[in-house]
């Protein structure tokens, strides 16, 4: 399902998306290009993977998403400005996440997703901590899914990637004031949604522990 979802998402790329027409994985590649791609991967794969995860791509789809991002990057190696590699890759990752989010069914309510996450995280006898962690991560997904992507982006970069606002502005190529404004609105919405999820979790616990 993970692969199918990403493939479907790729097919739904907007016509204006610069990442459309990503090359086949079998495109000939010189040793120089391979080395350059490997360097980009070594430097930025972790950041790209975290970005994909935190912008809404389910954990099971992150590998495919990571591969898609670097395949696109491979096709545009000569366009990547030195020093702007992370920004370039982030842009691809963000567009991928946006596409995948659109393709994921929205009929499942946010609260239901949290509940399903709890059901799927059947705790093993000695993994109470892991179960709690999984529950919290599923809840975080639900909360972040409620945020528009532009707000979600600045929030995860600031709070989770712990980037400074100036660096976020540079990464996203937007004014610093815009970052500050989006971050303020993102935090407001994040807190509201987190309250809703907390209430739902409390209700679920009440039902389960009756």
């Amino acid at each position, binding site marked *: 399902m993970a692969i199918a979802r990403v493939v479907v998402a790729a097919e739904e790329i907007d016509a204006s998306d610069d990442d459309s027409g990503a090359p086949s994985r079998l495109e000939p590649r010189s*040793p120089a290009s391979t080395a*350059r*791609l490997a360097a980009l991967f070594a430097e930025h*794969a972790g950041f790209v993977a975290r970005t994909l995860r*935190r912008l809404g791509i389910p954990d099971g789809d*992150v590998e495919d998403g990571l591969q898609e991002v*670097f395949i696109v990057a491979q096709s545009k190696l000569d366009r990547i400005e030195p020093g702007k590699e992370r920004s370039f890759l982030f842009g691809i990752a963000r567009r991928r996440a946006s596409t995948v989010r659109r393709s994921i069914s929205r009929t499942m309510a946010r609260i239901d997703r949290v509940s399903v996450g709890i059901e799927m995280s059947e705790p093993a006898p000695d993994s109470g901590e892991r179960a709690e962690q999984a529950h919290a991560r599923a809840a975080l997904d639900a909360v972040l899914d409620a945020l528009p992507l532009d707000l979600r982006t600045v929030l995860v970069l600031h709070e989770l990637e712990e980037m400074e606002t100036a660096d976020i502005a540079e990464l996203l190529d937007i004014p610093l004031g815009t970052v500050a404004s989006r971050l303020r609105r993102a935090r407001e919405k994040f807190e509201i949604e987190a309250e809703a999820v907390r209430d739902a979790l409390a209700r679920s616990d009440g039902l389960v522990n009756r």
Partner: protein
Amino acid sequence: MKRYQEDPETPTHLRKLLESARGDDLDAQRTQRVAKRMGIAAALAMAPESAVFPAAARAHAPLAKTTLRTLVVVGAGLCLVGGVAGTSSWRSPGDTAGPASTPRATAITSAPTATPATTPTPTPLEPVIVAPQVAPVPAMSVAALPNAKVAPRAAHADPAPTATPATEDDGDDLHAELLALEAVRKATSEGRPRAALSLLDGYAAKHRAGKLREEASVLRIEALASSGDRAGASRLADRFLRESPNTVYGPRVRAAVSRASSPEQQ
């Protein structure tokens, strides 16, 4: 704006939500799988300081800023000249390096390309990947490069565009070439074309049969154009394109000469 994690008044449930994201990194096994599918696992493994395939990996420990900064594998043309070099090889997903490929992309430690402020502060629970213990790549400065006579550019013998076949002992040579041309690229990007040309003279003297002669030629053309030597850039570009009519660097070379000839450059 203070982050939630830095604010003692952050409600517990918010703190727990955010802490749950600390495990968002892809573990080494999954990352390696992606690299293999892309056919770059060998290139990554060649990097002595690669943190993607460490000799021993520890999970759930901070990803050190310095470790991140040593994760650069610079291959021929990476930060030197973009695009695809003349020779190419088919790669398929999962390919490991074969004799036809050139896993000569040696790993060097490069200076950070971003300022420290752009590096995210690692959180305590982020997984760490420990690089294997290897001798650090010696830093090289321009002064450390062999002395090269700054011959008149027009009279300097330009290297042939095609690379010689790889041999068993080429790893160190390629490494040295990469370092040399990285310095050239840096000089050019910093607006010092004459320094770049001097470095290229040094490269040509030291690596007469170098594998990156084609890339060096392209960099020389660009440096000549940037320095204002339009005639020299044009002469070299003509020769380069005549000797390598199918080079993938053609558009880039023509663009460099065109820029040098534009009215804005006069």
